[in-house]
């Protein structure tokens, strides 16, 4: 068993009472608060959308192909980050770092495509103040994009630390966060692009 693997499974990383590592439990509680943030936005959007059938027309102007490509990109990034977790749990630190690098790259592609979409939509006159639909669109996708950027920064930090042998178990935690961001997009894509 490698030193890395020992530290990953080490007893200092786990609470005896819960049998859940403290960091993992912490990230789940953090995600519980995120459920309220994104869930609140989506709930308001749904309640208003049901009462505004004219939003269907606005939704037709979102770029479905770009949204579909971004969904593919995020789903694939979820695969690469979970492969990083699987690699680190086998003590394969360099392979895990490689998977994290790929995940960061995919996150960058997502942001670039999103920026292209924003540019196209604003050029068409669909600014955040064009209508309530577009206000929700920019609020929800913008907040999500900020979470993607935050996840990429966290992943780069965790990757750098893991390569030095410091806290490689955090790869799993940053992965759990990244999957949550993926789940949020799984719902945003049909809400904003497909349902019209």
């Amino acid at each position: 068993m490698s030193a890395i693997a020992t530290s990953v499974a080490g007893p200092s990383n786990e609470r005896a009472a819960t049998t859940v590592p403290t960091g993992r439990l912490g990230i789940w509680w953090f995600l519980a608060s995120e459920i309220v943030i994104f869930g609140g936005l989506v709930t308001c959007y749904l309640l208003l959308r049901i009462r505004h059938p004219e939003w269907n027309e606005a939704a037709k102007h979102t770029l479905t192909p770009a949204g579909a490509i971004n969904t593919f990109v995020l789903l694939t990034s979820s695969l690469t980050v979970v492969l990083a977790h699987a690699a680190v749990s086998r003590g394969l630190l360099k392979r895990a770092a490689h998977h994290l690098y790929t995940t960061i790259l995919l996150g960058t592609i997502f942001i670039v495509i999103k920026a292209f979409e924003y540019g196209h939509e604003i050029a068409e006159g669909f600014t955040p103040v064009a209508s309530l639909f577009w206000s929700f669109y920019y609020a929800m996708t913008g907040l999500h994009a900020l979470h993607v950027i935050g996840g990429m920064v966290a992943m780069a930090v965790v990757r750098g630390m893991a390569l030095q042998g410091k806290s490689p178990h955090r790869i799993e935690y940053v992965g759990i966060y990244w999957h949550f961001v993926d789940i949020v997009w799984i719902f945003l894509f049909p809400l904003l692009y497909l349902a019209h």
Partner: protein
Amino acid sequence: MNTTAQTGHAHPNYVAIWAVLLAALIVSILLAYLEHAAIAIGLIFAIAIVKAALVAGFYMGLKFETRYVIVAIAAGIATLGILFAGLYPDIARVYGG
């Protein structure tokens, strides 16, 4: 060192799950072109829920987590429910229904 060291469970076939997620994505996009919008939207959201469940269950490992993690998620969902209960009357008052 086996694959269960940190997670406490064996790693499932992540690539196979990814393939299912991609297939579900393609079906969702095709459904958007159905003539009957209400059925299409219902199916699209049903598929989104299945996709989210696959990611949460297998990629996030929720399927293998203890009740302490389930409590955390349940607390988040319950708080969201309270938020919904607070918001709904206001929106109903303004827009009716």
